[in-house]
């Protein structure tokens, strides 16, 4: 339960960090909050030769909220984003989901961008980014690029970041007008990874009918699964929407796996229940 040896690099600027990453390439891991990486090291499930500790790169410790959305720098801790009233007003799904990320003490240290880069299919924030069609900003000595959520999550614990690249920030688009969000998950114990979770974004038109409904799921597939349920809900007012049909559609459009926490069937059942729950709540909020 002790980490294997590694070379520690503590750059103080982004340029230094990118230079070290360019030099160390595939042998390097980036250390930000460390709330996922250090357990992996302690359990010897990872043994990178180099650890690039970005905790001293002050320029990455940013949180910017504009009308367009919330831009979160690579060193912004979960707790900072969760407590930001501005961020919650612009995109309430962030706070709603962050409250389910582990425990408050872990959120003091863990970072939003780190959670995205870790790309755990059971984590909350990748599903949020996928639902909102947000982006990850990456930089390397070769330049910068912006990666859409759908492309960013390549597989379980696998992002499309290249060796030598650093995720410098992420952008979560603002909640549109006449829209509502909801987040729910089921875990055996509060703070554990969820057996299934769902986030919804529902929009209504001027006649208060559901004009768009999308749900993103965690813990049901290798990457965050996003389903568009707009068609199933037939553009009705929320009071007459057939939520059970949406739940059934969702269950039929996911290929869940079993593990020690839940059977594939139970996981699919939970996803259906959660679909109905988050859609109702998000539609109510949209009105």
């Amino acid at each position, binding site marked *: 339960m002790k980490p294997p040896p590694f070379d520690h690099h503590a750059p103080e600027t982004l340029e230094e960090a990118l230079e070290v990453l360019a030099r160390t390439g595939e042998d390097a891991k980036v250390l930000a909050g*460390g709330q996922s990486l*250090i357990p992996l090291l302690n359990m010897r499930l990872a043994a990178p030769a180099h650890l690039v500790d970005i905790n001293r790169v002050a320029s990455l410790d940013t949180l910017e909220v504009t009308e367009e959305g919330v831009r979160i720098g690579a060193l912004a801790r979960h707790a900072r984003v969760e407590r930001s009233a501005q961020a919650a007003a612009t995109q309430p799904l962030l706070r709603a989901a962050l409250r389910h990320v582990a425990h408050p003490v872990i959120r003091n240290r863990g970072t939003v961008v780190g959670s995205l880069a870790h790309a755990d299919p059971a984590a909350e924030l990748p599903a949020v980014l996928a639902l909102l069609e947000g982006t990850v900003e990456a930089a390397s000595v070769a330049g910068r690029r912006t990666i859409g959520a759908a492309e960013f999550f390549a597989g379980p614990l696998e992002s499309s970041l290249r060796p030598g690249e650093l995720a410098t920030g992420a952008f979560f688009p603002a909640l549109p007008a006449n829209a509502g969000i909801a987040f729910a998950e089921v875990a055996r114990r509060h703070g554990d990874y969820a057996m299934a979770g769902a986030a919804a974004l529902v929009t209504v038109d001027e006649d208060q009918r559901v004009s768009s409904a999308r749900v993103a799921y965690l813990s049901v597939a290798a990457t965050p699964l996003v389903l568009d349920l707009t068609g199933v809900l037939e553009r009705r007012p929320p009071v007459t929407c057939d939520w059970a049909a949406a739940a059934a559609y969702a269950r039929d459009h996911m290929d869940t796996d079993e593990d020690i926490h839940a059977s594939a069937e139970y996981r699919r059942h939970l996803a259906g229940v959660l679909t109905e729950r988050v859609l109702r709540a998000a539609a109510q909020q949209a009105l």
Partner: protein
Amino acid sequence: MTEIGLTVNGVLRAASAEPRRLLSDFLRHDLGLTGTHVGCEHGVCGCCTVLFDGEPVRSCLMFAVTAAGHEVTTVEGLGAGGMSPVQRAFQDCHGLQCGFCTPGFLCTVTALLRDNPRPSEDEVLEGISGNLCRCTGYQNIIKAVHRAADLIAEESGEADR
């Protein structure tokens, strides 16, 4: 080996350690502060919780080298001038049995009550949800948190109930 210096309980301390040295082990083995307990070493149990620049964090999920130059408060620093209100509340309410988890609870609760001096029952449950206790069944710990809130209020001369 690297020389690592940080402020622990208000005192500047330094020792030499490998970069892979966890802050929890640095405190215990290199600085001799064995009040911080090590349980699971993957962030689940909360026994190793310390205050890092005032905020509770898992010392087993941070490298000492990352903590260099920062301020750490361990359980030894909570009761520097006699037991703190939180420590007395845990004693009064029998909020511990074997005591292994207690240093982590004390650090977590100290920060919780600093940020939220009168937490609701749900806020207490949420606040301590990341700390495991295998003895007490938590009821007396929850009582101790409310009792500590009372003591802090009384002692700051603002008793409100």
